[in-house]
């Protein structure tokens, strides 16, 4: 049912206060959900669940999905979708392993891997803006293309690579590294998250991203350079998938062309749980990160309780649907004033 207040509202103080409080409640919803899920497992799961070590593990396990979902946040706010991120991650791990085997230094290999991601994203963006096809179709195509490239480059098997500092990015900290609190990869996630949040709020590009997602025609009318903005959005998504691939490689220590299959769905789920709307124009970095954490907490809790993978999948699936239903409900409240 579609209810909207027709007419204008007076600017009385209490109304505004209420609105501000409501806005805050809306923003804190994903946080409340995260706390709720965490507390639930804290009660029903074995005590090891609340240990610091497990907390650190949760944070580390969130990193890959978290980084990729930052790019996806931009894509979804802009009214698009990127189904190719899982394949890009796999291609990046293969590229890094291949470069290491070819004798490159770890820095060059890492750089090359991330650039591969950026290139993939750029190709997505270029195809979407040049061919004027919906992103779902283009990225569904490139999902297969990039996966195929990864398999071809790796001759359909894992590429072993020598250990290097890359593998420490997402490994548990050694005792003498205690000052870092969490591994470098997690810090990278935090840093990138802050960057994206700032870009969304304090740049023209951020404003354009929201406006294109809300109404592309209106943005075109306003002279927003839609093609350029979209190209940038998908390139950034690819770049972040590149960083996610670097983290994936760090965890695997090998280049695996079959890894991260279906990762794009987790990434999209994180954005959606965090309040992103697939219709575009809505979403936030904080929400996305919380969404990614919620999914890891569920996984971790289920593992600690010795529940099988299928239970985790059912629980995660339910959470996604519930999150979107709640989001819809709070939206209809919002439009009712």
């Amino acid at each position, binding site marked *: *049912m579609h209810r909207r*207040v*027709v*007419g*204008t509202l007076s*600017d009385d103080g209490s*109304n505004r206060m209420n609105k501000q409080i409501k806005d805050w409640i809306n923003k804190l919803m994903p946080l409340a959900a995260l706390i709720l899920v965490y507390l639930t497992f804290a009660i029903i799961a074995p005590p090891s669940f609340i240990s610091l070590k497990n907390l650190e593990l949760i944070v580390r396990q969130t990193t890959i999905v978290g980084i990729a979902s930052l790019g996806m946040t931009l894509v979804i706010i802009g009214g698009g979708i990127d189904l190719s991120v899982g394949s890009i991650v796999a291609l990046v791990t293969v590229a890094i392993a291949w470069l290491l085997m070819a004798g490159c230094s770890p820095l060059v290999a890492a750089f090359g891997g991330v650039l591969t991601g950026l290139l993939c994203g750029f190709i997505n963006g270029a195809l979407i803006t040049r061919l004027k096809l919906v992103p779902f179709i283009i990225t569904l195509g490139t999902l297969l293309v990039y996966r195929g490239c990864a398999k071809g480059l790796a001759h359909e098997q894992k590429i072993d690579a020598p250990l290097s500092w890359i593998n420490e990015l997402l490994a548990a900290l050694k005792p003498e590294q205690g000052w870092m609190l969490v591994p470098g990869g997690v810090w990278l996630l935090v840093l990138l998250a802050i960057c994206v949040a700032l870009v969304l709020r304090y740049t023209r590009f951020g404003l354009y991203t929201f406006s294109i997602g809300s109404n592309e025609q*209106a943005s075109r009318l306003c*002279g927003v350079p839609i093609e350029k903005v979209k190209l940038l959005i998908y390139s950034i998504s690819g770049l972040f998938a590149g960083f996610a691939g670097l983290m994936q490689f760090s965890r695997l220590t090998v280049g695996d062309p079959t890894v991260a299959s279906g990762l794009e769905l987790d990434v999209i789920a994180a954005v959606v749980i965090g309040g992103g709307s697939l219709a575009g124009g809505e979403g936030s970095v904080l929400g996305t990160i919380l969404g990614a954490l919620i999914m890891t907490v569920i996984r971790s809790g289920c593992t600690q309780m010795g529940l099988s993978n299928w239970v985790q999948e059912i629980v995660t699936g339910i959470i996604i649907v519930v999150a979107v239903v709640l989001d819809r409900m709070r939206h209809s409240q919002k*439009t009712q004033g």
Partner: protein
Amino acid sequence: MNEKKRLQLDNIKVRFGGTVALDGVEFSVAPGEIVALIGENGAGKSTLMKVLSGAVIPNEGSMTLDGKPFSPRNPEEARHRGIAMIYQELSLPATLTVQDNIFLGMELSKSCFGSNWILDRAKMHSAAETALKELGHEIPLNTLVRDLSISDQQLVEIARARAVGCEVLILDEPTSSITRQDVQRLFTLMRNLKAQGHSIIYISHFLEEVEEIADRFVVLRDGKTVGGGKIGETTRDEIVALMVGRQLTDLYPKSKHQFGETLLELTSLVGEARLRSASFQLRRGEVLGIFGLVGSGRTDLIRSIFGLDSIKSGEVKIGTYSGYATPTRRWSQGIGMVSEDRKGEGLATTRTIAENLVLSYPQSCETSGVFSPSKMLATANTWVEKLSVKCRTSEQNIGELSGGNQQKIALARLLHHGVDVLLLDEPTRGIDVGSKKQIYEQIDNLACSGKAVLMVSSYLPELLGTCDRIAVMNRGKLSEPKCIEELSEHSVMMEAIA
């Protein structure tokens, strides 16, 4: 009030949270009567219609239909009881055929092995044919709705209502986007329905049309019924005074404009679709009106000038620039546009007032390359105040505002950008009289301050009231602009339909 009423509403009140949308509405309609419901945007007409169609449930008050209590909980129930709503923005599924649309939601079926989920297409075909014939029109039943004109779609909606035996029809602004001939066709149809004893509630901004078709009128203001009466016993001025709560003296403020150099020049411009030829010169300080019926190519003209549609041949010259340019380039050449389609193209309705306002010119809110949200809000607040836009805060989503206030922001975007040439496509469509007056005033101010305005409209009185010259678009061809003194309503209309 001793005559028999079909539908009667008493003291209807609707609140949304802390907002009172309807505050005691009295309304009735008798069989065989056409009642016009008028009021400014935001007066509560749409909410009242939603109450009648079951989309909103009132907090207080009572409704009776044919003497029985009536309190629909959803649109299906209202339809079942015989009330059909035909919205301004038609809501037919565009890729279904006319026949499927007429029966959508109440398909006829044949029983087969005790179940009834097999469609009886033959029966529906003949019933649809009868329904359309009853309305005196023939539309091939297998046409897809998206291929129909808006007025034909309206017919399908009405046929759809008649096919289930709805006897109370609510038409929301049915004439706002159809041509003059189609309006007459619709009115004939309404008179037929009335003669058959149906009740029609007619919502419109066009008082001329109300006077032509309605028996009675009811005026809403601020959610209340403020008056009503028989058509013919009340003057137009009195009705307008009831609507706005004040006497609207001069709707069209017109000062003497000083013309300067040519800012926009078109030389036999031909577009891709409807536009076949257009030439004119628009000078500084001038308001040039383009009149044309829907589908005549007037919107195509504006879109081609602004770079939204491509150009086949001919030339657009803006100042020293000539040739095609993208909308982005057009803005930087000092030209801005307000679209006729507020929701679809004019505004990003899920974003805030402030963002919509500065979207074409976010550079104005930047300090050394960094976009400043607080500067954006400050800018927006100035404009909100200047144009007296009614809103809670400029951080409010623009979709929550009434049409008139949305339109003020759409225009404010151009003012804020400081463009020299303004292309306004139907700038007052679907907005209330008060906002209209303000927009006319703005247009006049702009011309006085040396801007050039190109205004497209299908409402002739406003063009005659605001423009210096008027050109007529007829089947893609634009006539030579003529000075307003040489024109009359009659002559312009003749040219448009010739």
